């Protein structure tokens, strides 16, 4: 199984034999598009209380399930709450959660992977078998099982997403460390008698890290989708909270009120696209070999 996934990782790198100049232009475009989308959503999240025309929670029974209008650009939900404001406030829930979860997953996963790759031998074997086991579960299924066992709620959903997200970082970091540690400067440092932990932290990790950053960026998108999915099922955010997945769930059976599910979905789609573009663009920025070509 391990081998199959490594092959997949290699397959993903096969986008390299492109015409370099064109690829670079495209990637720079991707970086810009990604930064713009993610930046815009970060602003919305930070300034939602100022920008939102209505409160995300205030009920207004007189204007239940109104279609999009000038007053309510995204319409209202079954309790008369303004969807536009709720979608804006949703960014305050989802984006920070995804960010924190992936930051922690990167930290845990990369540490495990670095130790495995650098130590090698039995340590490596044991750690990688643990990684294999976690990766054998479809992420959503494992996250569902964990959240259900701990009890529904955003905090437990976060923990579940963390638990399913770290192993891929281990595998990636381990591979990077394995390839970097054979470089001349590492061999030289070792010959000079530099301590193992210093070589790992000072020489190997900084050079092994760029692909990990790229993966982390892409994974923020995945974590957003997973958070929304858990809320959609009913294991994440609790209904009145303006969480995108929960909003889609609330709108799912009401086809005549199409706006209820459409806009939160578009919000998810655009943020995730933003992070995908950003990751793609960063790949070029952080890879000195690609930059020089």
């Amino acid at each position, binding site marked *: *199984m*391990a*081998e*199959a*996934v490594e*092959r*997949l990782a290699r*397959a*993903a790198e*096969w*986008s390299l*034999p*492109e*015409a370099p100049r*064109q690829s670079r232009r495209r990637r720079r475009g991707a970086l810009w598009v990604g930064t713009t989308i993610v930046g815009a959503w970060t602003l919305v999240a930070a300034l939602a209380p100022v920008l939102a025309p209505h409160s995300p929670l205030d009920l207004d029974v007189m204007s239940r399930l109104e279609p999009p209008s000038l007053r309510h650009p995204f319409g209202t939900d079954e309790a008369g709450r303004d969807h536009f404001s709720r979608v804006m406030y949703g960014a305050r829930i989802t984006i920070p959660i995804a960010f924190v979860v992936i930051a922690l997953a990167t930290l845990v996963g990369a540490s495990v992977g670095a130790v495995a790759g650098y130590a090698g031998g039995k340590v490596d074997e044991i750690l990688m*078998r*643990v990684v*294999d*086991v*976690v990766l*054998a*579960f*479809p*992420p*959503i*299924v*494992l996250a*569902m*099982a*964990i*959240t*259900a*066992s*701990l*009890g*529904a709620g955003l905090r437990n959903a976060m923990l579940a997403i963390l638990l399913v997200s770290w192993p891929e970082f281990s595998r990636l970091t381990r591979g990077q460390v394995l390839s970097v540690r054979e470089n001349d400067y590492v061999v030289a440092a070792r010959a000079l008698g530099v301590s193992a932990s210093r070589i790992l932290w000072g020489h190997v990790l900084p050079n092994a890290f760029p692909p990990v950053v790229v993966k982390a960026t892409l994974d923020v*998108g995945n974590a957003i*989708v997973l958070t*929304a*999915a858990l809320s*959609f*099922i*009913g*294991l994440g955010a609790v209904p009145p909270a303006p969480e995108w*997945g929960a909003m*889609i769930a609330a*709108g*799912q059976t009401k*086809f*005549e009120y*199409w706006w209820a*599910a*459409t806009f*939160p*979905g578009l919000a*998810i*789609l655009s943020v*995730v*696209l933003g992070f*995908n573009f950003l990751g793609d663009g960063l790949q070029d920025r952080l890879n000195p070999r690609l930059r020089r070509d």
Partner: protein
Amino acid sequence: MLLSYLGRRLALAAVALFGVILVAFLIAHMVPADPLAMVLSDQATKDPSVRAAYMKRWGLDRPLPEQFFAYLRNVSKGDLGESFTTRRPVLQDLRYFLPATVTLSMAALLVAIVGGVPLGIWAAVRHNRAADHAARAISLVGSASPIFWTGLVALYVFYYLLEWAPGPGQLDGHMTLPPRMTGFVIIDALIAGQSDVALSALRHLALPAIVLGWFVMGLIARTTRAALLEVLEADYVRTARSKGVDERRVIGAHALRNALIPVVTVIGLTFAGLLSGAVLTETVFAWPGIGRYAVTASTRLDYPAILGVTMVTAVIYIVVNLVVDVLYGLLDPRIRVT
């Protein structure tokens, strides 16, 4: 060489299986709720002698490792416990719901291959031109859209607005399931000679299969494109071209055959994605498979059921990947040596 490769693959799969069962066991022990309260009456839960008797009966008074080995023994006998909601053995429930999930996943995989491979070829042949960018956009949007939302949008457009597709569910409302033979509704309907039921089942399958297939199509397209681009740089392709071989033949007969090896691997790997996606697709389309069963179970705190699904999907994933690894070893002689 091949044998030691297979041996290592098998050993790894066995270790992973053991780990999967351990993880399921640990999750079951994270449950903060009182396990006795799930099955006993309120009064019985409070009575210490009854509690002690049940703790003893189920081995809950034993040390954790001992409990784990008892659990391992049960699982290896196919005993996954009894569902709190359906009151049936979990394995029996899974067997009942699995055919619908397999039908949906296979149909989705078919959609993904039929759509993704040509899309990847098209993008590689028209490398860096409009077609390439279009293919890229399709796969980007496909992988970025939350599948439960895509499913709803598809239902809204094709069922509610256009009325092209039937609504959620596996069959039209007025139809009854054909007598159960294989569990696969389409096949069972054909066996029973009910062609109208089979047709209805096929029509209901189309939309969820397309939604789920679209979700993994991007990955298959990307891999096909990248692999084909790499192969197109190879010497034998240049030789073929310089001999004046027709470009169509260069791609079809020389390049594609070698480019498809990694695609086979990716198709195996998309299985995890398919199973993940199936859980949510089934929920949206009211599709009676193990994904919907798991979602219902997880919202009703039916732990044996949810752990059963968790374990079974992981086992399916491990087996599929083992098969893919073995196939790969057979297809590509270079792998065996490493």
